[in-house]
């Protein structure tokens, strides 16, 4: 077999810049074709990009583990559950959590999500312009989270601050050590907040997620406080930025492709398919990390035990070995096995909630503001990693 990486430096790729985050698909294409096991130019870790490789890795947690030694990086004292633990323990927790996040269960909160989406639009529709990320994409998933957790909507500001303290400590400091301190302190505030909430729900349960977790059983015993906290921490971190990023990427695409948007306005029943196709094409959560548990060789490259590997979901979702006319954004695509929510046992727990939020948001937005565009002369700004459109200036004509 010929060496797929003949040039020793040819396998190094740069993914972590705002320019590439704005349009990553061409880099993905080069990686799949030239170096299916690429190397991150900054971190040095291997990156898998082909659909069959990524799916295979996702489905083999005994080789590609989710148990990281870098949990401290996100301000947590312990791994988040179930994202950072492996089967079989992970499976036990998914048995408890999956029913709470099933599609059927999520249908019950649709009216609430729709109401919040409507209220957010009410606030800016008459102005004829908005910065979409801060006006809509950030608050909508956070209000849905608060509703799910049985928390009052007034907590919005607090939770946005807590989330940013973990994910964006660089907004407060550029010093690496200080950033870690901000993360750790924010982590402690999150633990304290949920500990207090768990105590209150133990005394007086109601119909919300925390009460459910307090009452849940694992191997015939109740969950410990720490286990419940580790689940709550994940729900806070995983459910907000990811949907924010997907809303931003989807609306940015639709703003720049009016003929595609026109189809959704004329036939809103296309929206669920558009949600899936934009998840595929944009893949806002570009990749998921894993730790190699036992040595394995892939395309002639040895992956060593203990090594961090990135599974590049975005590249796998634009692979023409799996997707017909992969470069075409096609709302009529008949076969769409995208991995935007990952795959295998760690398939995104909140995928049904995310889909609901995305569908309702696109329905309400296009019903109320069908003709929007990027503000002339302005350019949307994307962040790498999770492709959040941090700056998305939209404008439209008012009556």
């Amino acid at each position, binding site marked *: 077999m010929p060496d797929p990486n003949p040039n020793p430096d040819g396998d190094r790729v740069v993914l972590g810049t705002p320019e590439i985050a704005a349009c990553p698909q061409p880099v993905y294409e080069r990686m799949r074709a030239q170096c299916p096991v690429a190397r991150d130019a900054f971190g040095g870790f291997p990156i898998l990009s082909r659909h069959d490789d990524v*799916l295979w890795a996702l*489905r083999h947690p005994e080789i590609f583990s989710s148990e990281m030694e870098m949990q401290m990086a996100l301000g947590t004292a312990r791994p988040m559950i179930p994202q950072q633990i492996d089967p079989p323990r992970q499976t036990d927790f*998914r*048995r408890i959590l*999956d*029913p709470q*996040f*099933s*599609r*059927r269960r999520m249908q019950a909160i649709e009216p609430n999500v729709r109401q919040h989406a409507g209220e957010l639009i009410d606030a800016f529709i008459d102005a004829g312009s908005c910065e979409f990320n801060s006006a809509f994409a950030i608050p909508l998933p956070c209000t849905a989270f608060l509703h799910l957790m049985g928390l009052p909507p007034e907590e919005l500001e607090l939770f946005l601050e807590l989330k940013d303290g973990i994910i964006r400590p660089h907004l407060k400091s550029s010093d690496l050590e200080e950033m870690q301190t901000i993360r750790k302190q924010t982590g402690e505030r999150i633990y304290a907040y949920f500990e207090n909430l768990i105590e209150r729900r133990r005394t007086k349960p109601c119909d919300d997620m925390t009460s459910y977790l307090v009452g849940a059983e694992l191997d015939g015993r109740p969950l410990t406080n720490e286990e419940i906290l580790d689940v709550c921490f994940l729900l806070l971190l995983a459910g907000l930025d990811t949907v924010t990023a997907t809303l931003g990427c989807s609306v940015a695409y639709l703003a720049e492709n009016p003929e595609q948007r026109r189809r959704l306005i004329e036939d809103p029943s296309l929206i*669920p398919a558009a949600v899936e196709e934009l998840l595929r094409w944009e893949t806002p959560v570009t990749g998921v990390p894993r730790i190699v548990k036992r040595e394995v060789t892939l395309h002639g490259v040895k992956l060593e035990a203990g090594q961090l590997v990135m599974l590049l979901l975005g590249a796998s979702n634009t692979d023409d070995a799996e997707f017909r006319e992969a470069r075409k954004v096609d709302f009529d695509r*008949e*076969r*769409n*096995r*995208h*991995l935007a*929510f990952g*795959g*295998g*046992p760690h*398939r995104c727990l909140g*995928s*049904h909630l995310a889909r609901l939020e995305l569908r309702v948001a696109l329905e309400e937005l296009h019903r109320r503001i069908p003709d929007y565009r990027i503000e002339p002369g302005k350019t949307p700004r994307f962040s790498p990693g999770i492709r959040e459109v941090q700056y998305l200036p939209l404008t439209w004509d008012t009556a």
Partner: protein
Amino acid sequence: MKVRVDADACVGHGRCYELAPDVFDEDVRGHCRIRTTSVSDELEKQALRGEANCPEGAIVVEPD
């Protein structure tokens, strides 16, 4: 046509019961449950759509 699902491969993406609700249903965890293993001609298109959109490739539709 016959339809079957590999229960070990299903992880609850839910594409099948969303796109082909007359052939597939969801269990309490949101995993796939087949309504009928034997698919009539009118449901064949739905069954194939479910198969084509399962990210895990857990669904197989084949002739009797």
